[in-house]
């Protein structure tokens, strides 16, 4: 079964450094679960498969790697959806 990605806005806890950089610390998923981000790399401008573009943070949460997008002023992640769910 094929799958595609849709944009899903999320709440993010962010640390602002003294020079104005943003470091995401944790992400709250739509069901209320909070995932602590173990490591967020420097952002780069990139296009999301789910549409739109923004500053993309490559984040490691536990053993998995995910992308968090900052589309000023909101944050979103790409949610995987199977074709039959649409």
């Amino acid at each position, binding site marked *: 079964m094929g799958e*595609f990605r849709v944009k899903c806005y999320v709440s993010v806890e962010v640390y602002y450094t003294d020079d104005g950089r943003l470091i995401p610390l944790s992400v709250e998923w739509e069901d209320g679960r909070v995932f602590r981000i173990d490591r967020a790399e420097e952002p780069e*401008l*990139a*296009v999301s498969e*789910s*549409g*739109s*573009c923004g500053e993309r943070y490559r984040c490691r949460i536990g053993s998995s790697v995910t992308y968090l997008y900052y589309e000023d002023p909101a944050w979103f992640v790409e949610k995987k959806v199977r074709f039959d769910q649409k």
Partner: protein
Amino acid sequence: MNMDRIILHSDMNCFYASVECMENPDLRRIPMVVGGDPENRHGIVLAKNQLAKNCGIQTGEALWAAREKCPNLAVKAPDYHRYMDYSRRARKIYLRYSDRVEPFGPDEAWIDLTGSPVLSRMTPRQTADQIRKTMSDELGLTVSVGVSWNKIFAKFGSDYKKPDAVTEVTRNNYRQIVWSRPVRDLLCVGRSTQAKLCEAGIYTIGDLARSGRGELRRLLGKNGEILWCFAGGFDVSEVKKLNEKTVGADYDIKSIGNSLTAPRDLVSDHDVKMLMYMLGESVGMRMREGGFRCGTVEIHIRDKELRSFTRQRKLARPTVLTEDLVRCGYALYKENYRISETAGIRSLGIRACALSPADDPFQLCLTDDPIRMERSETLEAEVDKLRRRFGNNSVRRAVTLGDSMSGLNIKADHVVHPVGYFA
């Protein structure tokens, strides 16, 4: 010998439609257009995606005509704020290559690479390709880029091959590429200029370049000579510098204007007065926000048959007052147009020109009443404050009451499209 300049012109393909498709991937799979609101008589195609293009839909076409060609067409209302956001991001990308970036509307820009350090690593063509790739990677949009030694041929190059392509117009190939094309493809040649040129036997850009400069001056006046320079590749106009902080909103403001295609035709003096006040409020407020006074008022009228004209008048003294703007505009209208049920007006515009800083001293007339003027200025400034706090329609002129059009929020809906080449 003087080195030729290296100028790029980047044009975002089907800009509005591409942004919509970028934001909403579902739209990529169906024919879609961005179109105005038919209820307000703005129902034309502003941009289309490739699938809609394949159905033969053209920009500027009425939406009903487009739907006839393609019954399952998706129509999206324009979201100018989003387009402006993409436009700013694109300009930031261009600024990585040079500080001389001159926008030409929201979707186009010239980039002058002459002397830019990037040319020590790459050829102009490679730079153009890299810009194309960056735009695709970071914004998800395709651009076509023209490379040449002057702005006109660079623009021609970006129109030559679309989408997502680079065209180099060099001193070796411009005769084959540019000169063989119809004269209409040249910047600043519109429908009526083309008709005049064709009448004189000038069909291609090459014909134009080979004609005598004097002959063109006789035919088209000063513009004839300018077009001759354009066609021959003699244009030397500079690519202006862009301020990196404001990315686009930093050009000297020369005038502030607002026009509107009314939801229905204007058929009486009262209609015109009402719309002129509404437009005048928007212009006046923006003028006061910018800290300007205007010395000249200009109006633009387009009638039902789409014939249009402009008229302007110098004011006795510079003003910041909406009242003065509209009074002058209305007088111009009364002197130049006779309105009736059959001779209705479709679109109306008012513009404040000859701007000067609001706190500059100016000469009063003997008959002026400075205390009264100051009172009026204070009153309008207070009304501005109320509108900022409670919305643009919170305080309205009595003339606008009781009409369906009066609910339009002209100032909030206003978007600046910088497009004039000579502006």
